[in-house]
């Protein structure tokens, strides 16, 4: 019974992987591709590893699967953020249909963008 549940969960993960890779091929821009593929493929691999945990239980193999799952959940968004930041700083262009570039607006020197202070802390002190 648990084998069938594990196979169904892994098949759902495969569907997410396929959607992410189709997004990687079809979307027009490096940032759009990064957005689509990273999120979908992370969730798909997550579900495949959860299938391994369901199949083998919490033994040695399930523990390794949980460790791998935690590591992927931590590192995959970090790597995607680093790649997007590097691509933006290297000046790769956005898609011609993009409606805004908030990162360039906020990081331009001399702009009067609101600096991220902590106003909530002051409200806590004076109720």
């Amino acid at each position, binding site marked *: 019974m648990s084998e069938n549940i*594990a*196979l169904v969960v*892994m*098949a759902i*993960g*495969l569907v997410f*992987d*396929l959607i*992410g*890779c*189709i997004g*990687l*091929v079809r979307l027009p821009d*490096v940032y759009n*591709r*990064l957005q689509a*593929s*990273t999120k979908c*493929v*992370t969730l*798909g*691999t997550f579900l*495949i*590893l959860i*299938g*391994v945990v369901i*199949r*083998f239980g919490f033994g*040695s*193999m399930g523990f*390794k*699967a949980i*460790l*791998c799952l935690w*590591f*992927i959940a931590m*590192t*995959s968004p*970090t*790597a*995607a953020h*680093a*790649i997007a*930041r*590097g*691509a933006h*700083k*290297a000046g*790769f262009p956005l898609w011609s249909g993009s409606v805004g570039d908030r990162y360039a607006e906020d990081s331009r020197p001399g702009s009067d963008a609101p600096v991220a202070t902590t106003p909530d802390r002051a409200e806590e002190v004076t109720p």
Partner: protein
Amino acid sequence: MTQVIMIGLMVCALLCLWRAWAGPTPADRTVSIDILGILMVGFCAVLTVETGRDLYMIVALSWSMLAFVGSLALAKRLEGKAYDE
């Protein structure tokens, strides 16, 4: 059933490799190599279920760590800095 999942993951990997081959900018190639690393972790997990051996899970764990370090190095390189900067 696990064979079907493995074939589907191979199709995903081929799509990633197509993007790495045809990507117009170096950033596209970096993204596709990053995604390929995460996909291979899932492939090793499916191999674990297929064969029932403990070895492939260790391969998946170390592959995820190496893919993370490689992606960070490629992102640093993409930004125009040296690796140790």
